[in-house]
């Protein structure tokens, strides 16, 4: 069986465009990339089967039927891609809701560790037995929940403060 060249070229173009979009920071563009890649993969699945008439007994000779299995698999894959698209849309909407943008952000903790490494310190080697000066205690004497889950801003601030101390 020889595959159709048009299919292959289209699949290539879809994959190239999809990968380019996937490398963007904005989640909406990533979503577009995922959709293009998904379509490319579906087309690729289709090219795997034999082309021909409708695979229904009585309407087509068995020799001239198209291969129904890739079509069934593409149907499944389309449904899965649809669900994923909806979920990613919800994620980017929520991200926009929380942050005002939908850009994929860096790992905060990762940057903090890099920062520690730059200053050649390890966790626990510095002021481990002292309470951190930037800890906010709320009314009932417990640490403020916000300070336990550092946001990007508070980590940056803390890093700056420690930098000044050092």
């Amino acid at each position, binding site marked *: 069986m020889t595959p159709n060249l048009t299919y292959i070229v289209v699949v290539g173009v879809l994959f190239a465009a999809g990968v380019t979009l996937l490398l963007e920071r904005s989640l909406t563009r990533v979503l577009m990339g*995922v959709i293009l890649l998904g379509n490319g*993969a579906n087309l690729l699945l289709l090219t*795997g089967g034999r082309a021909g008439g409708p695979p229904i007994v009585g309407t087509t000779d068995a020799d001239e039927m198209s291969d129904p299995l890739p079509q069934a698999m593409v149907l499944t894959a389309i449904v899965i891609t649809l669900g994923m698209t909806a979920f990613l849309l919800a994620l980017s909407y929520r991200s926009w809701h929380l942050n005002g943008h939908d850009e994929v952000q860096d790992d905060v903790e*990762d940057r*903090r560790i890099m920062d*520690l490494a730059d200053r050649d310190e390890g966790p626990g080697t510095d002021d481990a037995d002292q309470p951190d000066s930037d800890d906010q205690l709320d009314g*009932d004497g417990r640490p403020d*929940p916000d300070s336990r889950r550092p946001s990007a801003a508070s980590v940056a601030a803390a890093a700056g403060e420690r930098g000044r101390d050092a």
Partner: protein
Amino acid sequence: MNHLVPLPVVMPLLGAALTLLLASRPRAQRWVSLTVLTATVAVAATLLVRSSIDGPLVVEVGGWVAPLGIVLVADQLAALMLVVSASVTLCVLVYSIGQGMADGHEETPLSVYHPTYLVLTAGVCNAFLSGDLFNLYVGFEILLVASYVLLTLGSTETRIRAGTTYVVVSLLSSLIFLVAIGLVYSATGTLNLAQLVDRLDALPDDLRLVLQGMLLLAFGIKAAVFPLSAWLPDSYPTAPAPVTAVFAGLLTKVGVYAIIRTETLLFPGGRTADLLLVVAALTMLVGILGAVAQSDIKRLLSFTLISHIGYMLFGVGLSSSLGLAAAIFYVVHHITIQTTLFLAAGLVERRGGSTALDRLGGLARLSPLLAVLFFVPALNLAGIPPFSGFLGKLGLVQAGVDDGGVLAWVLVAGGLLTSLLTLYAIARVWNLAFWRRPHPDMPEPQDSVHTVRTDGVEQPYRGPDRDAHPGAMLPRLMIAPTVALVVLGLALTVVAGPLFDLSSDAADDLLRRTPYVEAVYPGGTP
């Protein structure tokens, strides 16, 4: 007995539907989930016994004869994985119920938690049982979709941030898998694993290598193998403790299982053995060096998780019977231990109010039980004799020495070094979090969950608006499953002999390939 095979997939799915209907009745939801998972454990255990006596059990779904229909195959490897994963999921479910009840979520629980959790179980079981490449893909998708929801529960800022990376990377790996399936189908005209055995053997070597590479790439991302592992420590630690625990125990191991299955059944001959060994060494060392640098228990554990995936790949890469048996043993050990450690980390977060090492201290004195619950699995992970971690590593080292190649010796050295560095990382956690003077920020111990002590005055607990309740007495329902898993981890040492025999049998069957193929096609491959 064959009619039992689909049950580990069907029961959790039906349970998920039922719990969704019972969304407004959390108590009923809990009972349904518990019953379903207990039944799954029982069925999985029966499957394991039957498959080791009678050989692989096969079911043609819907009565469609293979290769027209989809087959589910429970051979020893699949059944063993089912037993371990079902037991671990059950323990984690009890833990999460305990946490939910203690947090006062009883009034307004997240009604999607139970259905999603059961769907995740169904996906994992489906991936283990699948005898068809596309069904394996569907199994992966079921468990991944459930994991997306579990990872972003509550959709807070940190979870959305972590979830984004996780979802996009997982989507990419699924797409690669789908493309690989398309290529395999166009090259061979079938996706049935047993039928692929002959048809792939007939293909030209170059083409086989391309297909093998594509599948390895897809499974490598899911299993968090080194160059493809950066997503894991970013996303796992932000989820609720039980979710992280079950992810760490199961999801990457499903990827490892898929690698074992495809490498032995579809692509024997070890053409990528050297690649696997190199990647295994890098995964071990880079992972554990990452762990040493971390200052948060959950992140540190995530890095040890990546690092120890390297041990399993080591066994697979050796492609000898002993290596494979040790790898299977190691998977069983690691599922149990890594889950236990994450549950213990959840308890630490509860007791100490944080998992950041520079905010903890003196936990050994404040909560001796918690210290034991962390210490035992931690030593087990590092591979201290006589724990199962040591036995697994011993098997791998022996297999490496038997192999005798240069790369195998490098791997043996790398494995021992990784084991030492794991011990170092674990000892650091122990020193900082469990010894030292208690950190001044650490909350005072409380007598009861529902009161909070302020200046010596008992005040009623204010509401379920926090993830962790620092200083709260650890709820029994959270302690019990952790204890159970610690005991299970210790039991792996006690039954190590029979378990290793079982792994060896499974490994032999995998390498011979005929038991699997003959079980699916008793009359010969069409």
